[in-house]
């Protein structure tokens, strides 16, 4: 330090990442208990892959390896990749996802802080495009034993159509596309719980708990979660009120798919998101809007990942156009009050 300030807040990249990992734990625990421990196996695979890839890339880029690996950012990326993948994807798919996120999205763009796109979302989108069937096999709550899950992950038989039901978003979509069913009728099916997808809804609650922890620790600000949840709830409420037969309720939208994981852990990714307060609101609100549109009218049951990537592209523009007013340059800065 050769210039003031000579005191600093006790914050660091490592502490930030560590707290994010801690905040993910309630959701992961709920996941392991309700759906099965497969997710833990895939978390381990992705963590090892991501950290290994991070170290290798740093070495190739001739950067100090120990400090950068120690900042835990690769572990956060690995966990987020796994948590937005189905928990029973084969190991090599997890490896691919982690490699795409760390090697292509992060390091080819210049490493930590330089990537314009959200690594976990690129991993998700590239894998769902490349392996749509595997990326759509979401097991229903508590029906697959650990042995079965382990066998699926490590490369056993994949004839599991009988055991993996459609996800709540999937079932709703297929039901509505058939043209004969209304939302209420579809929601009677076994995939649905009290709020959204059976079992999955409680994982969402876990993510919310972790997200509130991050808010309390000031790792994230309220802007993005509020804008994301607000817009998703607002637009789904509007259409649900207009035609409850065709559009699902806001509660369903919020509790299904990755909405809560996204609200607190995905859209809040600092590196690829907007940085100004108003920019954050527009960024997260835009993602929610795109996600809702894709869920209702698009070709994929879940649209958050595409929403994130599309809004990532808008970040430079958003940040440029939403700089806070500069002190002393207000239009009424003649001393007439704020």
């Amino acid at each position, binding site marked *: *330090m*050769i*210039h*003031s*300030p*000579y*005191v*600093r*807040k*006790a*914050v*660091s*990249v490592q*502490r*930030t990442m560590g707290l994010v990992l801690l905040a993910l734990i309630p959701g992961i625990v709920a996941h392991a208990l309700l759906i099965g421990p497969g997710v833990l196996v895939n978390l381990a695979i992705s963590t090892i892959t991501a950290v290994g890839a991070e170290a290798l890339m740093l070495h190739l880029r001739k950067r100090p390896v120990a*400090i950068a690996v120690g*900042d835990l950012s690769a572990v956060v990326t690995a966990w987020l990749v796994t948590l937005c993948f189905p928990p029973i994807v084969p190991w090599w798919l997890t490896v691919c996802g982690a490699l795409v996120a760390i090697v292509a999205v992060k390091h080819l763009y210049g*490493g*930590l*802080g*330089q990537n314009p796109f959200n690594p976990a979302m690129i991993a998700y989108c590239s894998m769902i495009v490349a392996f749509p069937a595997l990326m759509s096999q979401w097991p229903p709550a508590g029906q697959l034993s650990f042995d079965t899950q382990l066998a699926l992950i490590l490369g056993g038989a994949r004839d599991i159509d009988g055991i993996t039901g459609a996800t709540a978003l999937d079932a709703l979509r297929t039901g509505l596309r058939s043209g004969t069913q209304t939302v209420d009728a579809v929601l009677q099916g076994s995939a649905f719980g009290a709020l959204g997808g059976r079992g999955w809804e409680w994982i969402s609650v876990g993510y919310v708990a972790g997200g509130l922890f991050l808010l309390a620790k000031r790792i994230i*600000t309220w802007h993005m979660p509020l804008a994301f949840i607000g817009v998703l709830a607002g637009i789904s409420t509007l259409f649900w009120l207009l035609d409850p037969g065709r559009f699902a309720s806001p509660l369903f939208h919020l509790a299904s798919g990755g909405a809560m994981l996204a609200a607190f852990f995905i859209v809040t990714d*600092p*590196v*690829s*998101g*907007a*940085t*100004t*307060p108003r920019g*954050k609101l527009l960024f997260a609100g835009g993602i929610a809007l795109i996600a809702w549109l894709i869920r209702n009218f698009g070709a994929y049951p879940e649209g958050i990942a595409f929403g994130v990537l599309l809004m990532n592209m808008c970040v430079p523009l958003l*940040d440029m156009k939403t*700089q*806070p*007013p*500069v*002190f*002393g*340059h*207000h239009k009424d*800065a*003649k*001393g*007439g*009050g*704020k």
Partner: protein
Amino acid sequence: MKIFRFRGGIHPEGNKDPTACHPIARLPLPQRLYIPLQQHIGEPAAPEVEVGDHVLKGQRLARHQGSVSAPVHAPTSGRVIAIGDHMAPHPSGLPVQTITLEPDGEERWIETEPAVDPFALTRAEVSARVRDAGIVGLGGAAFPAAVKLDAGNRHPIDTLILNGGECEPYLTCDDRLMREGAGYVVEGVRLIANGLGAKRTVIAIEDNKPEALEAMRAAAAAHPGIHVLRVPSRYPMGSEKQLVTTVTGREIPAGKLSAEIGVSVHNVGTALAVCRAVRFGKPLVSRVVTVGGGAIRNPRNVVVPIGTPAGDLIDFCGGFTEPPTRVLMGGPMMGQVLPGLEAPVVKGTSGIIALTAAEAHAASERACLHCGRCVDVCPVGLVPLELAARVRAGRIDDAAELGMGDCLSCGCCAYVCPAHLPLAHLFNYAKGEIAARREAQRKAEETRKLAEARRLRLAAEAAAKAARRPARPAETVETES
């Protein structure tokens, strides 16, 4: 009274308790005093004593020169033993013109003329006494106080704000001053209000100083025009722009003085100095300095003659408990590194702070995460991460367009940065660069104007010549010119 909120700001560890709880101590006379001729913003003072002269306490050593300047007085009686270069209390450590005084230990005052009734003095008389006493802003900026008072003649001042914010961590000199000298401070602020013709006076004190608030309320109770206002503890509350907004809701337009929107802001230490100068005729020869930080054995506030070497002050406070990583002059948010312990205390020195490595949380720089915390805390509304990226790329003009020139250098952005980017450092560099470019541009413009004027003058002369000799052919005129 209504309080307005300013944007951003931080809540740093105050670390004020170790010094705030002790009464102000008095430093025994040092062996030598080193009194720089420039302790203020503006022109340096011109010496009017010779080596070998014996001077009395309060005697003028150097007179002010130029419109923005301040005289310098002898902090004690003694002999002038040198006039020459000594280390400046500035990170550069470059030598500056300094008068070295050897105290004779008698503390004999020069004859002073107390005012019979200081409140009967005219504005000009108040201002003259303040100027002659060498008073500058004691909050740290060291702007000559009389110049600020005179601004009241050009701009009507409706609100005088006494800045008792003291938002810098560690510093408690203003806090102790308000607790121990509330009566004098209130009298001083009344004199300033008188000098400015201000209608109302607001004494703004951060809520982390309840004892000072209490003392100032009691002292101001008899004066209905004075409001003692409790303001939230939020750095940079003590910055003039932020304090004016907090108290009045007004925003000082960029590039303007607070006086232009009818507000004048003075520090509590300045008010005390004004009281001593106007009522008792005594010049500014000492000040209260906070000697603090984790590396100081007995941290406390001390009244110090101007010119005391920092080392004497630290020795008086028990020396160091461990080697400090930094010794600062001023607070840790905006203060500067002391180049050496022989650098003297000057009028603007609010603190000598010796930080341990653990206090500084020093860490190596990492990549920017774009987390936006710097944006949240910037009191100006800048986007520091974007500015930093531009300054690093050498795109100073782009940074200027985003408001670089409005940066206060308060350091909030660097304080909260989890990647430990040297944001304030980059911005000070950029601001210096912008100022240099503006200066270069002004010079180029000036040169262009002069060249243009010369061309016109020569052309006019040639035309005049041609007019006097109408018979001559035009070509000859051209060759002559």
